[in-house]
């Protein structure tokens, strides 16, 4: 029996939950309580969920976020988005082939339509992620009457998917703490404030011109909220990429992947390939490794990864091939992804013939960047409703920046309401800017000359906003510029005649796993290196032979593991100790996890970019749209009229940036492009919900007059 569930995870706790039976095409399978239908299917090795009604193309998961309808299945006869519905015992799931049948209902059924709940609040916060939560905390502290809505089952937004320790400022934004734990801290704090009402599983659907916001409350009821001020903290959505095979099941976004792995605790892939070397892609790769998934490669089209060097180095050290100046040519496979073909690019980002490489993989993650989810903000502004945006909905940046921008927006809103008369310190805005900043300069590695005693080697070479290392040293030997935490940490061999005691705290706390400890005390010729490791303890044991690598993953030597240590209170990072010759000691950055990965030889098919799917919902290709652009069409509304691109369930969320990209490729300036009208609803909602009926199918049906 196939079982792709995670029962152990180095960081996440896996609760034991009851198992029960369900059916897929009449085959009896096992689900774990709390799984969505999609995760239950993935856990059983199923990843083709339906066949598109237009051309029969197999469809798999794409957003895992309820935004598209790629994962549509029939659940007990009802078409549902499998990523949003929880599986129930005995449920009969079928793939949708062609258009689904709308389940019949006795035409004599009479319904009791409930009145639609209407609610007035001072502030409506859309999104309970880092920005929404901190804004709610600021507002709650001041007793402002707020409603916070979030479409997920728990608060925290994408924080709940983040197993790594956070960067940023330890004072301002919980740096050094793991994302999942920050989510819990923020949730506990916001729940202390009685003036903040929280609706979970509640999706904002539309901002209307009468200044009411339609909300699908708790997944089943319609409510209209009339706020004085709206704060949009709805985060970001992932950009997509056009390449042949981009529509195959197994090609999806890094966010979807993190949801499946870190929230639903299933392993949706055995061999993963990542497109995009920003933080999202790099972190997703790390999460994959933590879940026991092989990461066969990562391509980044630019000469350098855009994400933090420490994230990139972590992956490289663990044995993930990182190919910069490379692009994806196509995903190959019949019914789902079987391999990916990549190639080196020239200065104009054009693939260089003869450099193609094909890697076997079953999943390709697209992690090429994010766009703000700002529809509600724009609509609110258009309709004259006082509106603010925070976090990624305002500007794409790290979660640490979102945590801080939420605080600022919270106080700004309180000021507008006249409930806070103080000034917002200008230093807050400076901090916000620092936290938002992209990685700065990278410096060559520098090692202290000393070869005795014990001391940390800091392999942190790129300016990024981060300072936890400076807060943990009991002798204050590590300093980061307090006014600009982007500056590299400085290590003092000693202060007041006192040096490092080898407490390991800096090694453990560094979010980039970029600090090792070198200890010459036992054997000056073969010093012992302490390496941080965030994987299951049982995969590595004393006596194991490991490949020791430098900070960027280049092999240095083979070594035997002296000890594997987990300390209570060190928050799941384990420490591995190895001994290496003293000339290598300071260079050691980590140990390799994955064996060497080689491309497989396949015949390269030639690039056919026009097969790439631009509108996934309506199956519109790049070729169809390119033809219209070449005819002179500049109005995306007209492209939509002709091709239906943008008319599908996702509401043009995926195709719009891709269409802009095609325009760019055709040399059309942005100023000539007319964007399509964006209209509600944010997601599709059953008609009955608007009529005041619960959306849950079963029970309430036949309640007669």
């Amino acid at each position, binding site marked *: 029996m196939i079982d792709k569930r995670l029962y152990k995870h180095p960081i996440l706790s896996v609760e034991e939950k009851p198992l029960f039976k369900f059916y897929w095409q009449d085959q009896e399978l096992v689900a774990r309580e709390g799984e969505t239908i999609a995760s239950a299917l993935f856990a059983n090795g199923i990843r083709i969920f339906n066949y598109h*009604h237009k051309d029969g193309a197999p469809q798999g998961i794409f957003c895992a976020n309820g935004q598209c*309808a790629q994962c549509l299945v029939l659940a007990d006869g*009802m*078409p549902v988005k499998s990523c949003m519905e929880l599986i129930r015992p005995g449920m009969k799931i079928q793939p949708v082939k*062609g*258009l*689904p*049948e*709308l*389940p*019949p*209902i*006795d*035409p*004599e*059924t*009479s*319904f009791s*339509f409930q009145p*639609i709940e209407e609610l007035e609040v001072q502030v409506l916060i859309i999104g309970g992620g880092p920005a929404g939560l901190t804004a709610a905390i600021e507002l709650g502290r001041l007793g402002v009457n707020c409603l916070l809505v979030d479409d997920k089952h728990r608060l925290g937004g994408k924080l709940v998917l983040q197993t790594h320790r956070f960067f940023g400022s330890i004072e301002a934004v919980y740096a050094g703490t793991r994302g999942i734990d920050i989510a819990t801290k923020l949730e506990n704090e916001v729940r202390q404030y009685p003036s903040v009402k929280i609706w979970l599983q509640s999706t904002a659907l*539309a901002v*209307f*011109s*009468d200044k*009411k916001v*339609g909300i699908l409350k708790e997944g089943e009821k*319609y409510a*209209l909220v009339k706020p004085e001020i709206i704060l949009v903290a709805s985060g970001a959505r992932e950009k997509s990429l056009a390449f042949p095979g981009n529509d195959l099941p197994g090609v999806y976004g890094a966010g979807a992947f993190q949801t499946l792995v870190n929230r639903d605790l299933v392993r949706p892939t055995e061999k993963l390939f990542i497109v995009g070397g920003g933080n999202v892609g790099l972190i997703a790769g790390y999460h994959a490794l933590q879940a026991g998934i092989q990461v066969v490669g990562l391509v980044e089209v630019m000469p350098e990864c855009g994400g933090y060097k420490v994230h990139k180095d972590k992956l490289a050290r663990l044995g993930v091939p990182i190919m910069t100046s490379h692009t994806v040519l196509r995903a190959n496979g019949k019914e789902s992804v079987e391999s990916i073909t990549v190639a080196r690019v020239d200065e104009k980002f054009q693939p260089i013939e003869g450099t193609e490489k094909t890697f076997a993989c079953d999943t390709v993650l697209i992690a090429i960047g994010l766009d703000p989810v700002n529809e509600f903000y724009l609509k609110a502004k*258009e*309709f004259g409703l006082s509106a603010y945006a925070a976090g990624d909905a305002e500007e794409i940046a790290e979660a640490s920046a979102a945590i801080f921008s939420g605080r600022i927006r919270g106080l700004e809103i309180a000021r507008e309401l006249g409930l806070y008369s103080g000034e917002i310190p200008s230093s807050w805005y400076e901090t916000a800017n620092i936290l938002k900043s992209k990685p700065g300069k990278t410096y060559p590695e520098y090692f202290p000359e000393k070869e005795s005693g014990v001391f940390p080697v800091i392999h942190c070479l790129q300016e990024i906003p981060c300072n936890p290392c400076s807060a943990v040293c009991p002798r204050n030997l590590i300093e980061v510029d307090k006014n600009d935490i982007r500056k590299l940490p400085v290590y003092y061999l000693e202060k007041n005649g006192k040096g490092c005691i080898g407490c390991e705290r800096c090694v453990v706390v560094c979010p980039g796993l970029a600090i090792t400890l070198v200890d010459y005390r036992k054997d000056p010729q073969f010093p012992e290196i302490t390496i941080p490791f965030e994987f299951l303890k049982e995969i590595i044991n004393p006596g194991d032979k490991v490949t020791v690598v430098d900070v960027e993953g280049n092999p240095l030597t083979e070594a035997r593991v002296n000890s594997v240590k987990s300390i209570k209170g060190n928050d799941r990072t384990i420490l591995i100790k190895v001994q290496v010759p003293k000339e290598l000691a300071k260079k050691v950055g980590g140990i390799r996890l994955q064996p060497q990965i080689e491309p497989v030889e396949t015949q390269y098919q030639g690039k056919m970019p026009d097969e790439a799917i631009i509108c996934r919902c309506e199956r519109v290709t790049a070729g169809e749209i390119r033809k219209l652009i070449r005819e002179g*069409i*500049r*109005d995306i*509304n*007209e492209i939509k*009229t*002709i091709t239906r691109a943008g*008319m599908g*369930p996702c*509401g043009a969320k995926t195709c719009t940036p891709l269409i802009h990209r095609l325009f760019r490729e055709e040399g059309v300036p942005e100023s000539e492009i*007319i964007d399509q*009208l964006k*209209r*509600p*609803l944010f997601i*599709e*909602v*059953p*008609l*009955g919900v*608007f*009529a*005041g*009926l619960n959306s849950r*199918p079963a029970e309430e049906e036949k309640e007669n007059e």
Partner: protein
Amino acid sequence: MSSPEYEVIIIGAGSVGTPTAFFLALNGYRVLVIDKNPSPGQSSNKRAIGGLRATHSDPAKIKLGLRSLKIISSWKENYGDELEWHQGGYCFVAYREEEEKTLKEVIPLQKRQGLKIEWLEADELRKILPDLNPRNLRGGTFSPEDGHASPLLANEAFYRQAKKVGAEFRFKERVTGLMISGGQIKGVKTDRGSYHAPVVINAAGAWAAEVAKMAGMEIPVTPDSHEAAVTEPVQRFFEPMIVDLRPVKGSANYYFYQHATGQIIFCITPSPSRWGFDERETSEFLPMVSRRMIDLMPRLKNIRVRRTWRGLYPMTPDGFPIVGWSREVRGFLLAVGMCGQGFMLGPGVAELLTRLVSGKPGPDDQEILSYLSPYRSFVSEEILK
């Protein structure tokens, strides 16, 4: 004086202007269409839901509707463009005596005009619409030759074919004035230039009164707005457009059908009317329309609503369009006030305008024009709105 560049200038590339450009150009006229939008059909056409019927209650609209149906239903065969035409018929349902009486009253006239339409008793109607709520159902009319198509695709097809036969279009250009001299129209001024023609057609939809004013004419066209929505697609489970005429608090009639794509498209008439140019979505629409639709067809409860929008109905006081020559300004032709039926009347009106411009009216044209005259009294009231 040099000859004018164009023979006809049409203001508005919408449901009326675009097919008119096509038929005129097809008949050899040099035509220019001017529209303020960046591409055709971007004002009210794209907001139309797509119903096409000849089932009206007066000879003029019945005749124009029949022509439109003929043009749209044979378009693919004649020109090759897919318009998502589906001949599903129209069904006006009656749950009360009032509606039964109204509907039955107009059947003789409709039949005289050559419409295929029958009154079906409840059990017969349920054979066509098994999902219709049978409680208190009295019956309804069924006109099998009506149907529906995509307004967007139709307008785009008229546009492309019009260009093929020589019509010119200028988009993102706003008409700022009409050139009139000695009581004769000479052309059109826009924010980007001026264009000459001896005939100018006002097909400016909701903005028609503003354009007429440029010729010194006051015409009673005022936009009202209706909201509409479209659902996810599902397998076809009913054929006709369903119209429920019952007024209830907050709304008059509403109607819905299943499009060729499998999607349900629906629309409601707010009561009282919402006058003005506001096309922004309101929070009232979905709760209002959903109850009525689910009550009528419980099966619709689970269909998911995908998108919602609001569009303008250029209304006239009596509910009939205004089509005809201006008496004050020679060469100024009005084709306005379609009252939300521009899509279903547009192709028929386009042919009529072509005949008017060419001075070769057809046998029924005088009768049609008498109903639609700009100089009528506007006091009658339409039975089937």
